[in-house]
């Protein structure tokens, strides 16, 4: 049955119908009718952020920690332009988001009206799809399609722009069950083409002498079942497995087959194994440049299998031998079935030789660092944070930079959806609002934003949000007074000229926390660290823990730009080969 209501009511009804519980947003002139409707209902909770950029990262944190769609509501003009970074971030990391923006009334569109901007034009390249809805009768079909598209196939952000007059106008509401989305608008797995491919996959794996699994964020997006299946398959084959930054948690860190993270700041053994393997099984990763290093030297002697839901990732940068397009969960189920039916086995003696080699690489102990009693080493701070929080239900978010890499290296993730970091876009300012979103979704969990002193200032205004909603988010700042990763690159590639990477006039983070009526803590010496961490996790309030760490510590191991997996730099004393250093300088 169709019901007539206002556009704004249709928006709310659509959200309710889609099972939305919380919306992150900020009001303004062009969304007032929706905020008015929001005021009159109780089924949807609204979290008021302090800048729209915070809203979208919070929605990302919510989506990543739950697997649900994150919803954002902002006004026209600056409201819309402020979410562009977050939309791009969600696009790059495949996070399902529905973003609702207000627009000036239709008769003013194109007149350079107050707070007007071409929102669909601006956001076209940074959304999976977007809509400008001009007819209230089309609102509910658009909303239901938007939610489906956001989750469907490779997830991503979808934006709906609604002129103010459409929010007031009356129209019919259509239930989501009645909406039929044409198949070409959705992802269609090529199951029929995949049967042969799956036979090829199992054949190659059973014959490989030096196989390695390369596991990415697609395994997390595919749902918790995917992580189980990955573990199961890795165990069945006995092969080593390495994870991308986005894939951390798919296979538990303590899993005996896990080699940890690979790539630019990945584990030595993982990168060496990628270089030397004879079969590379990519599950849900996209051969990102942070992972591959120099392409012409990337895993030169291997056959490559690539399982990905997005066909455009196949052969995009790395040519593969067996592409399988589809959802990780359904493909792994089929692979496991075929594997069992054919009674396949990997050659144990070959695998043993392979593992012996890997175990030798492990002896390098690439994460080794020298602790001292005077200064807190950032690596040590993360190690202690892990030890003191590992028994709790902990979510870790990060900003972007050295602290992010140290968190990825030294914090051990055992479960998927517990590690929220901006991988593709590398958005400083992501971690704190993402932590707010994760805390809203998981009120009983311990949510910690591992931050740097520079990154945290990019969305520090959200302190007000965290305190208002009594969200006990913990901000764990590794404070070295530098934009650490910028400084590190300047040291390694630009003759140590630290151009604009020192953050002078930092606030007193303890007083800053207190001014927001939150708790501020500080550790200056290693012996104070455990006490501060314990106090931080035991309070039920928002906390900023300002951890003073060694100022010029570098993040190692590292594959410098322009180098290959087997050319890792393990410490400051080891110089990169001059030729590749020169070539690498122009890269990002």
């Amino acid at each position, binding site marked *: 049955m169709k019901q007539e209501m206002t556009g704004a009511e249709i928006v709310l009804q659509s959200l309710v119908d889609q099972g939305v519980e919380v919306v992150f947003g900020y009001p303004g002139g062009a969304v007032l009718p929706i905020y008015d409707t929001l005021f009159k209902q109780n089924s949807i909770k609204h979290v008021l952020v302090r800048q729209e950029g915070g809203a979208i990262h919070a929605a990302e944190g919510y989506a990543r920690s739950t697997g649900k769609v994150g919803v954002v509501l902002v006004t026209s003009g600056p409201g819309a332009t402020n979410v562009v970074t977050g939309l791009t971030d969600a696009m790059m990391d495949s996070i399902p988001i529905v973003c609702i923006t207000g627009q000036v009334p239709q008769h003013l569109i194109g007149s350079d009206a107050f707070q007007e901007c071409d929102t*669909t034009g601006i956001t076209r390249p940074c959304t999976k799809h977007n809509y400008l809805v001009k007819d209230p009768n089309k609102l509910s079909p658009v909303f239901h399609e938007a939610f489906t598209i956001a989750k469907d196939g490779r997830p991503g952000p979808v934006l709906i722009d609604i002129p103010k007059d459409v929010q007031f106008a009356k129209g019919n509401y259509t239930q989501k069950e009645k909406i039929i989305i044409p198949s070409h608008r959705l992802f269609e797995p090529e199951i029929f083409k995949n049967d042969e491919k799956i036979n090829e996959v199992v054949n190659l794996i059973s014959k490989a002498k030096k196989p390695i699994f390369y596991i990415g964020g697609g395994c997390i997006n595919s749902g918790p079942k995917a992580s189980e299946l990955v573990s199961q398959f890795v165990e069945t084959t006995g092969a080593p497995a390495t994870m991308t930054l986005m894939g951390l948690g798919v296979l538990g860190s303590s899993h005996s087959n896990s080699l940890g993270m690979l790539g630019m700041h990945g584990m030595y053994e993982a990168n060496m194994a990628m270089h030397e393997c004879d079969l590379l099984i990519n599950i849900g990763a996209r051969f990102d440049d942070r992972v591959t290093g120099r392409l012409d030297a990337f895993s030169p002697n291997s056959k490559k299998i690539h399982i990905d839901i*997005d066909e455009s990732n196949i*052969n995009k940068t790395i040519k593969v031998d067996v592409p399988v397009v589809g959802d990780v969960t359904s493909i792994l189920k089929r692979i496991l079935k075929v594997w069992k039916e054919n009674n396949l086995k990997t050659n144990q003696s070959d695998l043993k030789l392979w593992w012996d080699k890997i175990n030798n690489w492990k002896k390098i102990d690439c994460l080794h660092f020298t602790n001292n009693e005077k200064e807190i080493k950032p690596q040590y701070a993360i190690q202690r944070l892990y030890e003191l929080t590992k028994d709790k239900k902990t979510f870790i978010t990060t900003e972007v930079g050295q602290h992010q890499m140290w968190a990825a290296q030294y914090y051990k993730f055992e479960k998927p959806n517990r590690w929220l970091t901006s991988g593709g876009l590398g958005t400083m300012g992501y971690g704190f609002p993402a932590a707010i979103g994760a805390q809203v979704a998981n009120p009983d969990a311990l949510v910690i934003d591992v931050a740097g002193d520079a990154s945290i200032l990019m969305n520090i205004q959200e302190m007000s949000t965290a305190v208002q909603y009594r969200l006990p988010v913990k901000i764990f700042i590794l404070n070295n007074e530098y934009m650490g990763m910028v400084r590190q690159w300047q040291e390694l590639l630009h003759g140590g000229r630290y151009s604009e990477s020192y953050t002078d006039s930092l606030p007193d983070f303890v007083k800053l926390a207190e001014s927001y009526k939150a708790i501020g803590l500080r550790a200056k010496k290693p012996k104070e660290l455990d006490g501060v961490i314990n106090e931080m996790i035991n309070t039920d309030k928002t906390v900023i823990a300002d951890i003073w760490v060694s100022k010029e510590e570098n993040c190692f191991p590292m594959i410098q730009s322009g180098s290959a997996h087997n050319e890792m730099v393990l410490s400051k004393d080891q110089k990169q080969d001059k030729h590749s250093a020169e070539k690498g300088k122009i890269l990002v």
Partner: protein
Amino acid sequence: MNKSVYDSPETTAVSRRHILTVLVDNEPGVLARVIGMFSGRGYNIESLNVAEVSNDEHLSRITIVTEGTSEVVSQIEKQLLRIVPVHSVSNLDEEGSSVEAEVALVNIDLNDSNKKKIYEVCDFYRARRIENENNYVIFEIAGASERINRFIKDVNQITKIEIVRSGPVAISTYKNTKEE
């Protein structure tokens, strides 16, 4: 072969012209999505043609002429398919046999001294006179782009002309072009 921050492995693939036809829902912004993908990812458009092809279903067909290696063009096809309102993409070149044609309108400065020669050239290329005003005559010529190029070259040697060209449209000669 690809676009990455790192050097590509050496490749001997040759870059050549491809005609892509893209069937899309005729909805606002769809053309912007398609051409935005090209400019955003650094691909090249040599010519572009778009018109609705079925009124009742609101479908449009976009014909794009682009240049690239087969790897690049295959990437373009896959990126096009990610766009929500795109139904299908065919690379007519790969299908082997297709027919292409384009239309040009040519405004020719005609006078008593060049008249005869111009009409000869126009007859030879089967260019049709469609308008005649103020000493200017407008001819229409349709067919393969190569033929239009030659026509323009020949007329240009005689007198000053002004040209508009549609860019090619193309269709597969297979009977059952798979379409939704």
